[in-house]
């Protein structure tokens, strides 16, 4: 496995944080979707960003990955600023992502979908493809190998030549993750990977995310509503509400933080009329 492991898993780089975000803000017209959020993601860790719907989580993600232009603030990956980079340049820099609504390439089979992920890593260019040079064959083989490895990694090898849209829903989610991993990222951003999954699939997802960090050495940052998954997986949690960071810390600190409950369950709940434990777990899933 480690033969093709990517740069990230080399022994920890000098600074322990892989991604440091300072004062990131996004203003759409009058509305401040994200209000000066700071975030430090430690290397080879699993962190989560949670918050009720409309808290600005996806906008936050989109600014990191270059889809939206931050109104202010900085985003540094391994000390290199990502400001102003196009989404494909961000991916080449080493951040891959999945989407809230699955965005697979309908007319390609699973293997080809994942091979698209290798696009920025393949050396063979236009002329190589035309003349079928040695470099072309090497890079095509490498692309296919990595794709098969990633498919195997997420357990979809048997669907290699199946149309991406023919796969069951849970497998399509895994395929998107496999495609993101194929870009050999340092950090992978998963946008609500467990949405619409049944408990068995969520368990499989949990072990998969752990293997991403342990086997591939890729840092994982999660947006998720499934509190059980978030609480058991994350080493560090940040909570956003109405675009601002209202809490951060280890899972148990965040669970008991009154501001978090207020954000999720409304003012009354925070005053303790309901049992803290069940509400937080159940409420969040509504």
């Amino acid at each position: 496995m480690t033969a093709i492991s990517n740069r990230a898993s080399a022994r920890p780089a000098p600074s322990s944080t892989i991604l440091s975000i300072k004062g990131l803000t996004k203003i759409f017209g009058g509305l401040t979707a994200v209000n000066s959020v700071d975030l430090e993601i430690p290397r080879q860790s699993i962190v989560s960003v949670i918050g009720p719907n409309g808290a600005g989580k996806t906008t936050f993600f989109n600014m990191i990955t270059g889809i939206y232009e931050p109104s202010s603030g900085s985003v540094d990956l391994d000390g290199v600023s990502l400001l102003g980079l196009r989404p494909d340049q961000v991916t080449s820099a080493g951040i891959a992502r999945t989407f809230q609504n699955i965005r697979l390439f309908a007319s390609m089979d699973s293997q080809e979908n994942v091979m698209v992920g290798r696009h920025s890593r393949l050396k063979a260019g236009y002329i190589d493809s035309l003349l079928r040079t040695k470099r072309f064959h090497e890079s095509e083989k490498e692309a296919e190998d990595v794709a098969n490895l990633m498919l195997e990694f997420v357990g979809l090898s048997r669907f290699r030549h199946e149309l991406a849209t023919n796969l069951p829903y849970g497998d399509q989610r895994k395929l998107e993750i496999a495609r993101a991993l194929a870009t050999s990222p340092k950090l992978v951003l998963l946008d609500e990977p467990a949405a619409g999954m049944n408990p068995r699939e969520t368990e499989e997802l949990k072990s998969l995310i752990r293997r991403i960090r342990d086997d591939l050495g890729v840092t994982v940052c999660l947006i998720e509503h499934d509190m059980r998954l978030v609480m058991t997986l994350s080493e560090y949690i940040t909570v956003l509400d109405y675009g601002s960071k209202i809490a951060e810390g280890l899972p148990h600190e965040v669970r008991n933080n009154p501001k978090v409950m207020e954000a999720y369950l409304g003012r009354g709940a925070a005053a303790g009329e309901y049992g803290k434990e069940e509400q937080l777990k159940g409420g969040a899933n509504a």
Partner: protein
Amino acid sequence: MDFATLAPFLVGVVISGLVLGFVYAIIALGYTMVYGVLQLINFAHSEVFVTGAVVGFEIFRVLNGVEMNGYLKLLLALIAAMVASGLLNILIERLAYRPLRNAPRLVPLITAIGVSLILQDLIRIIEGFQGRFDLTYQLPTGFSTPFCGPESSCAGVGKFLGGIGISLQIKEVIVVLVALVSLAALNYLVNFTKLGRAIRAVAQDRVTAGLMGIDANGIISLTFLIGGALGGISGVLFGLKFGTVNAYSGFDPGIVAFTAAVLGGIGSIPGAVLGGLVLGVIQNLIGVTNILGGALNIANLGVIDSSYQRIGAFLVLVLILIFKPTGLLGRSNVEKV
């Protein structure tokens, strides 16, 4: 060429550009209505609009001898054209576009091109039976006399217009008035009626509109009826303004009108009107650049003569779309990721 003669000249150019713009605007409306609902470039619209022009010609020809008020003849021509073009448009949608509702977007486009080719020849055949090809409008007397000419009552306006070398014809004023009335009616219908809401809902999202109990197919047919009626009106106005129409004269104005619809923001009704007016003025200004070039003695501007009118309009469209990708008034739904 001093400023004194240049200024009225330019005003005259802009005014005739606006009149031309109204004709393009009302044709553009036909494209925008259909595009709004089906996201389809309806190439066949140019033939729907020619059908209106031909029907208008036939009405005026039949009524030529009849002793009747000129404006009544015009009204009859407009109504007949609206009915003919409207029904034709529904027929086209029913037979050629509905079965392809879920096919890839290029397929209905090619069908529209096919329908346009068929209609062109059909119109030529129908008119050919009476041995006619170029149809010249026989307008009621007085339609071509200058509006507010020196001898008419509103001499003041006439003097001013005459001063700047413009003698607007009554028929041109009719064109502007009928265009304005149609735009107002359409605007009221689309924005202030239950039916209008349904059309806008189907335009936004056909599926969800279906969920809300709107018969999407019915609304689409209705939109085609309205688009066709507008095409009919624009055909008659085209015949009024330019006087002669034939089976193949729909293609060029169709392309220019679609450019106007895109310039204004495809799918938006005020956009089509603004696009048409802007395009009309730009085309005229480009047409006179060699005079301006001469006046401001910029040598190579003199080269740009009227044959650059069409491509000038396209280059302006490119510039506008670079800075505002959805056209002047186009709705820009920010991409939800």
